């Protein structure tokens, strides 16, 4: 059932996102071509220089728009699940966690693809992938397994952060869905309140960590970390952060799922 939900989710979002992506790609290619042509000319009138700068600025704005559209489409999918679409999707014999999982996986995948796509667009704008790919190849070859593992860990950490971002939106939608009217407004307010709470929580936790560190003779710990060498120290720190973010994600997921099973209230 999860794969079917994923397939359906993917198709629905692709219908909107692929055309946008295509448009952005074409615009970027055109701008890149203009750059390539104009950069080889000297003493152009100021007007042309200005237009070129404008064009590049617009290209960057268009990228931001693309990212925003990606997030918006994926969040809207979830919002609609608790609205009109729920009558179809939530009637399906699928557990609620599968609905959340399908939406989350799909949203994260699109965001990662979106990020990669923007890097590609950046290269196109400067017409500089040759150097880029060569560099990448070189550095890849020179990587030690340890560094590679660390990179994977960083990626995992970023992914967990990304999932957390979407789970924030989902939880906000879930809270908004509890209201009879003005659900959109309620969801938006819930999102900001959640953000605020998370901020406070992180600050408090950070402070507690600092106090704990002082209380528990942190210097000894520091020494331990230093003794292991800085590379492993970074890895440990990353692991702790990753675990923290994952726990946060799990809590958000659990509350969303609880709202959708025990407190479901379709408009």
């Amino acid at each position: 059932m999860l794969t079917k939900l994923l397939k359906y989710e993917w198709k629905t979002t692709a219908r909107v996102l692929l055309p946008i992506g295509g448009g952005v790609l074409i615009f970027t290619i055109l701008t890149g071509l203009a750059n390539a042509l104009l950069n080889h000319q000297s003493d152009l009138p100021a007007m042309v220089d200005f237009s070129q700068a404008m064009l590049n600025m617009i290209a960057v704005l268009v990228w931001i728009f693309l990212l925003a559209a990606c997030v918006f489409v994926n969040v809207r999918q979830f919002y609609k699940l608790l609205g009109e679409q729920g009558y179809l999707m939530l009637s399906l014999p699928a557990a609620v966690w599968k609905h959340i999982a399908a939406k989350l996986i799909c949203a994260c995948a699109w965001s990662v693809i979106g990020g990669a796509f923007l890097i590609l667009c950046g290269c196109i704008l400067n017409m500089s992938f040759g150097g880029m790919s060569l560099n990448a190849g070189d550095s890849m070859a020179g990587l030690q397994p340890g560094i590679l593992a660390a990179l994977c860990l960083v990626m995992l950490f970023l992914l967990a952060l990304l999932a957390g971002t979407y789970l924030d939106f989902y939880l906000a939608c879930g809270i908004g869905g509890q209201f009879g009217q003005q659900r959109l407004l309620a969801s938006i307010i819930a999102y900001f309140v959640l953000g605020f709470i998370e901020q406070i929580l992180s600050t408090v936790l950070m402070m507690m960590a600092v106090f704990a560190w002082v209380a528990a003779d942190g210097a000894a710990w520091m020494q331990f970390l230093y003794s292991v060498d800085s590379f492993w120290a970074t890895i440990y720190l990353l692991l702790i952060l990753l675990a923290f973010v994952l726990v946060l994600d799990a809590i958000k997921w659990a509350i969303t799922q609880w709202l959708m099973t025990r407190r479901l209230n379709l408009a």
Partner: protein
Amino acid sequence: MNENVIYEAQDLHKRYGSRVALNGVSFAVTTGKLVGLLGPNGSGKTTLLKISAGLLTANGGCVLIDGQEPGVYTKSITSYLPDRMALPTEMRAADAVDLYADFYTDFDAAKARAMLADLHIEARNRIGAMSKGTQEKMQLCLTMSRSARLYLLDEPLGGVDPAARDYILQTILRNYHEDAALVLSTHLIGDIERALDEVIFLQEGSVLRQVGVDALREETGHSVDEYFREVYKC
């Protein structure tokens, strides 16, 4: 409780804020029965069906479908027709059939296509471009093409023209199985009362009466429609 009870509600309560939608609804529907859920607007018909379909949580009491509370299992044996358009409007008719075939193992795609053809709905028509009545017909066809144990239809005949209404009624009568039960809500009882076994009258969130159609006709000498008008007279 009778072993044949497929669908029952026990002391079901639901509030929307301070407004009471269901106030202690209890009834039982046995297998093989075609039951009409009658009541004026705001009497709780849609709320009851939404709770039964697992789209709304009750504040008290429970709904049991084949002995279980609404969940993945009950959804797999219940075919629910909401009171609104639930199919994505950007889909074509054929996509919607595929979607149902994908998600419901008891869905008969061939039957659905035949029904759509009978109603002159083209497979490549976009759902968003169909008239409201056609969308309703389309949705009903999909709902009735499953071989479920329980059908819950919320206002299946609301916006449909009389000719299609007859076809739909025939479709319902031909397609539901002897080991299935069907509950439909309506406030247009006239056309369909002779197709029903029983009717449940809802009023202000409570069951006023659950009675067999022929028993009621025998008792009152009126049709259910006339009785309905009498009971709910303003």
